[in-house]
């Protein structure tokens, strides 16, 4: 069953492409995160799905219905979906009940049905006791629940959420994340949410779509995004990896699933997906270790550099090491059990990394 289909969707604002030729399919019942740095076009995608923006090009279908395409545009009023705005957008002059029921009036439902639906939606978000309260009397988390209940009461097949955890403090964030997962499981509605926070995306979503510069970089399960980034942009954004240019030699002799790469006068065998030729290795701080002078196995490449900066991070010191190379990764980060002074010479061993092709 198909939930959402976007085909070659583009949208520009005054010359800048916010969304560039986007293809995306989302299964019915998925919990999809649109992840990316600010300005990557993720909010535009959400507003395109809602019908609050018109695509310049391309087709959008929700379920069996094309809602935007050549000569077709369905207004948001007629799309029958729910949306939780970042500001919650609760109508300040209405009670909680009034907010939730406002969209239900005027669509031919009888009064008892409306009351039942409002009660059910408020039950689901755990706010039945606050039905008569006004938005300004509620806490941030409660307001968000009202906004969610307002969407749920419409019984949509799709609910869009704009940065749902951004306005909440740290404690509330964890409990609201659990609430979203529970409600998603109970209602089996498709949820699409936008976030710039990778931890939030990983914690909530069953699928993550990473956007950068208006283009889709990768759609996959959270684990895959984390362990197997498909493009340099994803690698840089997720897990804050640093990229080093290498030469990919081909599949490893002893493990065909791994790739041999040439780095710093030595050969490394790493996981990844790239043809032979120029490539990147993507390094997280955990994938590097300080090499003690004695323990070098023959042929293992070591990266030499000088400590630029270091600070204690609880449990270990995080060092920024200047590799003295031209190009992208002038510096990498590595954990150290002991503090090292700025300017100290160190050598780093690559423990783990991910290989990607590099356009030469």
């Amino acid at each position, binding site marked *: 069953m198909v939930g959402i289909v976007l085909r070659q969707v583009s949208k520009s604002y005054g010359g800048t492409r916010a969304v560039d030729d986007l293809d995306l399919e989302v299964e019915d019942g998925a919990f999809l995160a649109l992840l990316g740095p600010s300005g990557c076009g993720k909010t535009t995608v959400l507003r395109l799905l*809602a019908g609050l923006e018109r695509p310049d090009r391309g087709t959008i279908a929700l379920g069996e219905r094309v809602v935007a395409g050549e000569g077709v545009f369905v207004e948001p009023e007629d799309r029958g979906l729910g949306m939780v705005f970042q500001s919650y957008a609760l109508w*300040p002059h209405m009670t909680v009940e009034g907010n939730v029921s*406002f969209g239900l009036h005027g669509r031919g439902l009888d009064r008892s049905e409306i009351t039942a639906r409002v009660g059910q939606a408020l039950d689901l978000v755990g706010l039945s006791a606050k039905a008569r309260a006004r938005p300004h009397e509620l806490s941030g988390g409660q307001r968000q629940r009202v906004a969610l209940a307002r969407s749920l009461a419409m019984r949509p097949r799709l609910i869009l959420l704009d940065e749902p955890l951004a306005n909440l403090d740290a404690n509330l964030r964890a409990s609201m994340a659990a609430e979203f997962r529970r409600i998603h499981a109970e209602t089996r509605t498709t949820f699409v949410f936008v976030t710039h926070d990778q931890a939030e995306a990983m914690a909530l979503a069953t699928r993550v779509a990473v956007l950068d510069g208006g283009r889709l970089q990768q759609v996959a399960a959270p684990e895959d995004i984390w362990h197997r980034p498909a493009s340099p942009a994803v690698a840089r954004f997720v897990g804050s990896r640093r990229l080093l240019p290498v030469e990919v030699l081909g599949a490893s002799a002893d493990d065909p699933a791994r790739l041999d790469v040439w780095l710093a006068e030595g050969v490394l065998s790493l996981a990844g997906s790239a043809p032979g030729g120029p490539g990147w290795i993507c390094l997280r701080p955990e994938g590097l270790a300080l090499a003690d002078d004695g323990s070098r196995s023959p042929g293992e490449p070591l990266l030499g550099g000088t400590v630029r900066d270091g600070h204690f991070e609880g449990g270990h010191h995080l060092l920024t090491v200047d590799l003295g190379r031209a190009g992208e990764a002038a510096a990498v980060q590595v954990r150290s059990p002991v503090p090292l002074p700025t300017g100290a010479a160190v050598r780093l061993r690559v423990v783990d990394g991910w290989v990607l092709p590099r356009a030469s």
Partner: protein
Amino acid sequence: MADVVEAAAGRRPGGFRLRRPALRRDTVLAGGLLLLVCGASLYPLARLIALAFSAGEDGTILGTLSQAVASTAVQRALVNSLAVSAGATIVATLSGAVLALALGYGRSRARTAATFLLLSPLLIPSQIIALAWIELSGLIWAGTGGSPLYSGWGIAALMGVEAMPLVFLATRAAMTGLPADLVEAARICGARRRRIAGRIVLPLLAPAILSGAVLAFAASIGNFGIPALLGIPGRFPVLTTLAYQRLNGFGPAVLPQVAVIALILAVLVLGALAARALLLRHMAVPVEVRPGAATPMLTSAPLPLALGVVWGGVTVVAILPMLALVLSSLAPALGVALSWTSATAANYEAVLSSAAVRRAILNSAALSLFMALIAGLVAVPLAYLARLRRNPAARLTTLAAEVPFALPGTVVALAFILVFLPPLPIVGISIYATPAILLFAYVVRFLPLVLGPISAALARLDPALDDAGRVCGVRLGRRLRGIAAPLAAPAAGAGMVLAALTAFNELTVSSLLWSAGTETVGVMVFAFQYEGNSGKASALSVLSILVVAFLAALFDRLGRRLPGIVPWRD
């Protein structure tokens, strides 16, 4: 899924048809409002301008224009208008800036009351201000013969008093925007009070003061009440009174000549407003304003000098003239000295028993009420579309709606005579000389007073409030009624009261559009004074000031919770 996408590309399987709505409802509404506002305000003005540029009676190109401009009466009125407006601008700028500075530096408890009284010339119509000062000058120069007010000097001084609040408000707005740390930084640097005022505060306020001065000039050019009461008997014609006298004396036949006067008025006012926009763009330095930052205060204790200036200003601007007006309304007859024993309510009795006055009060009340209601009905959807929906046509309409308020009332009234004197097409009747033309003109002229607060209130709202309704499937009409209208209601109420208050005493437009049976309060005050019956004029003025005071209190109550709506509140 593939078939879904194919369906979008036009290959629709299974007779699955997609319907595109012909026109979106908000587009239709915005287009309708644009047509309505342009048709009602810009079209008559365009006709008037076209008439001013029309060929002369003998067929010469631009004959009307050249004939009118060659007339010595028009030239004299133009020179007089420019001279008294320049004088008024000087008076308004000096007094407005000094009073705003004094009020800003000397904090006093009765700050709101003092501000309200200093702003009272904005609420009290100019013919009543003129009348009050005539009575005041009668008390001061009793027995010396002609009062010096009936001259260009007098007109300039009174128009200066009337325009003072414009400079005062502009200066005060700039002062509240100035962060206190700019002054504090100068004090840390060791600068003395005089140096801080001269080198830091005044330069930062200068653009605001100058822009207020330009507004004062534009308001003075379009002023009718003061030159009508002082200049007509004093034989000192200005452009607005010349247009009135010509039309009154010769009837609609002189419309082409009067249209040229209107054109000159419009050019002067619009030129001044354009100069103000340029001035603000090139002179204003961006000042970083943080909410909650206090106004720069040289001292926190009330300065006796500043307080003296403020209350001296209040006395001269509001208390003395109003007192003179009340005294005159209680005087038994012209020339009879007023004392505790001779005071009489005869003027009030005479005024209230007059059928014409009763009719005028009823007319003014009904016109104000219906004008406010119609303006509210137009303004709420317009502001909703322009501010929450960001509809370009609606935003254009809000700009077009400002024009009739920015231009002198005389110009608007003349444009309405021109368009509505002939019978309307289709229905075949003329609304000229009916209350309809007054109502229509009032709506067009005072719509910005209602639109302004509503626009400001809706612009502060998160557009997501409306988007949330759209996503919930709520149609335009219900969103307007259920979301926009309740949220705009306090501002709409305040704006409607302000417009009703202004319209109740309106004179400039009414004096040209009234006819027997459709007298208004403003016209009656003017008529009484014109007949030399100053006692009755004063009595009716006092009554109408009471109405204004009541409406101002209502406006204050409705608008006090809204930021920046009630000008006399901080």
